[in-house]
């Protein structure tokens, strides 16, 4: 009887999870072994053909590489910036609430709106960035139209957008640190940097792990800005894996290949999450 009661409590959540997460994931895996069907040529089992096509697809490798650099460029810098901002606004400074809010504002804005604003920042000549540079006599640059700068430009925007969100977590963690630790360190004569390195930073580790997992997922999951800023261009220089999946599924209508790409993305994310938990778990001190 007790079992029935427990299962009943679980049912609503389970239905939603299975219906919207597990079943679609399983179906995606299943679909990736079939060809895309049309009325003229119905879908048929093709085994691993889609995966072979994927291995031969230069754009897939390019967007995967882009995504790697994108993750590498955004995650550490966003986390470091978030930590610095949190330490800063945790101090007693004038108009503290205002500063905190200012740092958090980018997080509140929708990504599409942010991308539209930054699109104009980056516009050659009339953009904010170029007008600012012009004050110092720096020549105008086509930030989003140059394959060498486009990914960096996109990363900068994402760091700006994300750091404030992560700051909130660090701020919460900092507030929960017992003040005695700092007082004790002061009495012992520890420098601020030493105190941060040996006390604050290790105590923030659980938060860092949480933020790291989130940042990693976001670096694969957030592509809204590409629709506005670059559409993945020029020549796929700023395209990311999920954006490419969208193109394959909804512009090329190749659902089978899109499923294959999605399976790769899921596997990649699952692998990263496991790796993070295994590696960093050891270094995290939960209280």
């Amino acid at each position, binding site marked *: 009887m007790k079992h029935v009661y427990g299962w009943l409590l679980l049912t609503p959540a389970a239905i939603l999870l299975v219906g919207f997460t597990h079943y679609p994931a399983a179906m995606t895996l299943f679909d990736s072994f079939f060809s895309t069907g049309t009325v003229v040529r119905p879908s048929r089992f093709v085994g691993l053909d889609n995966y072979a096509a994927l291995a031969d697809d230069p754009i897939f490798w390019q967007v995967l590489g882009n995504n790697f650099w994108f993750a590498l460029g955004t995650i550490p810098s966003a986390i470091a910036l978030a930590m610095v901002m949190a330490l800063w606004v945790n101090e007693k400074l004038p108009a503290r609430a205002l500063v905190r809010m200012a740092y958090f504002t980018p997080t509140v804005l929708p990504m599409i709106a942010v991308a539209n604003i930054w699109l104009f920042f980056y516009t050659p000549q009339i953009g904010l960035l170029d007008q600012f540079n012009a004050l110092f006599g720096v*020549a105008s640059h086509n930030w989003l*139209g140059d*394959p060498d700068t486009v990914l960096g430009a996109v990363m900068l925007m994402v760091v700006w957008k994300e750091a404030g969100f992560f700051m909130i977590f660090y701020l919460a963690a900092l507030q929960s640190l017992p003040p005695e630790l700092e007082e004790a360190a002061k009495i012992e004569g520890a420098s601020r940097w030493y105190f941060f390195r040996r006390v604050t930073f290790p105590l923030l580790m659980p938060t860092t792990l949480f933020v790291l997992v989130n940042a990693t997922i976001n670096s694969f999951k957030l592509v809204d800005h590409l629709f506005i800023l670059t559409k993945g261009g*020029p020549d796929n220089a700023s395209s990311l894996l999920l954006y490419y999946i969208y193109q394959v599924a909804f512009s090329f*209508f190749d659902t089978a290949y899109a499923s294959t790409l999605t399976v790769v993305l899921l596997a990649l994310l699952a692998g990263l999450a496991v790796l993070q938990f295994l590696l960093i778990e050891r270094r995290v001190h939960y209280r």
Partner: protein
Amino acid sequence: MKSVAGLIAAVLLAAAAPARADVELTFYYPIAVGGPLTKVIDGYARQFEKENPGIKVNPIYAGNYDDARIKALAALKAGQSAPLSVLYSIDLYELIEQDVILPWDDVATSAEDKAWLKVFYPALMMNGIYKGKVYGIPYQRSTIVLYWNKDAFKEVGLDPEKPPANWNEMTQMATKLVKKDASGNVTRWGVMVPSTGYPYWMFQAFARQNGHDLMNKEGNRTNYAHPDVIAALDYWVSLGKKHKVMTEGTVEWGTLRQAFTEGKTAMMWHTTGNLTAVKDTAKFPFGVAMLPASKQRGSPTGGGNFYLFKKTTPEERKAALAFVKWMTTPERAADWSMATGYVATRPDAYETAKLKEYAKSFPQAVVARDQFKFATPELSTFQTGRVRKQLDDAIQASLTGQKTPAAALKAAQAEAERLLKPYR
């Protein structure tokens, strides 16, 4: 409590009463909800309902062309009826391959209806006809034109009323129009052609001007690697690289209009869909001209067509035909063109009193019509998304200096060939 019950009863009655013989005409329309055009379309729908009792028109605004297509096809798969939709004109082959649309010839059977199928500009019908049958009725259509800043022309001693007529003139004028500050940085470019979003569309104009279309009528062959087509891309690339009259790299579609109205480029190629917005924001007199010629003039058409879906009852088909005919009368086409800047889809619309009047005060509005003589259909083939992206990538790779135009276009052609072979 009583009033609530009364309200419920009233709602039920209202819902039940007209439901007997009504045909409901749901159609997907590719504009964002709440955009300025939704009001115009809603207005048309209400007026049509008033004039045609028994038909209920229910437009669903579905975002951009891609979104509208996805939503319409998803609704279809889910078994919901949307007898009619305005979708991208170049979705034709995709919709045929999915076997979801009907030719209008099947429902337009009377002599009068058959004549109606022939009233539109032939240039606008090219994207809507497959194997001799009409699948797309042009509605929300545009084309590319050249905008020029008359003040800038005057400033450098050019005749402000004379836009460039050919590529040579455009290069020469653009070179004159480039303005630099004391330290040698460019403060105004000569000409800009956008190369994000729809690079293939702009390139079609270059290719056509150089004598070639990029695909065949059957939609199963592309012509990306013809020497003249390669020369056309060479010219586009040279504007930035050799002549230094355009920014190097890609030019953003979305911000180009501001660059023009801020005076940062003296000329731009852009869609006629921007005409009203430029008119409202430019603080200087500007002109609109046909695109310059190389061997000939040329510009692709673009935009949305009315499609009729297969999964419909005879009543729905009849109602759909009545509605589309009503939406495309000369008067309404004229009205629509003035409200939006899109071209009026039939010649007799330009003969209506109101559009004649409008053209007199704003002659820029009829340039697109005059250019129809030289128009070519928008790039559309089977597997259109992939075939088009091959070209988009080749253009961007060339403009950013990653590949030479010849190498990029040959690679794109080879890939398109592979994709299209099964359709021959």
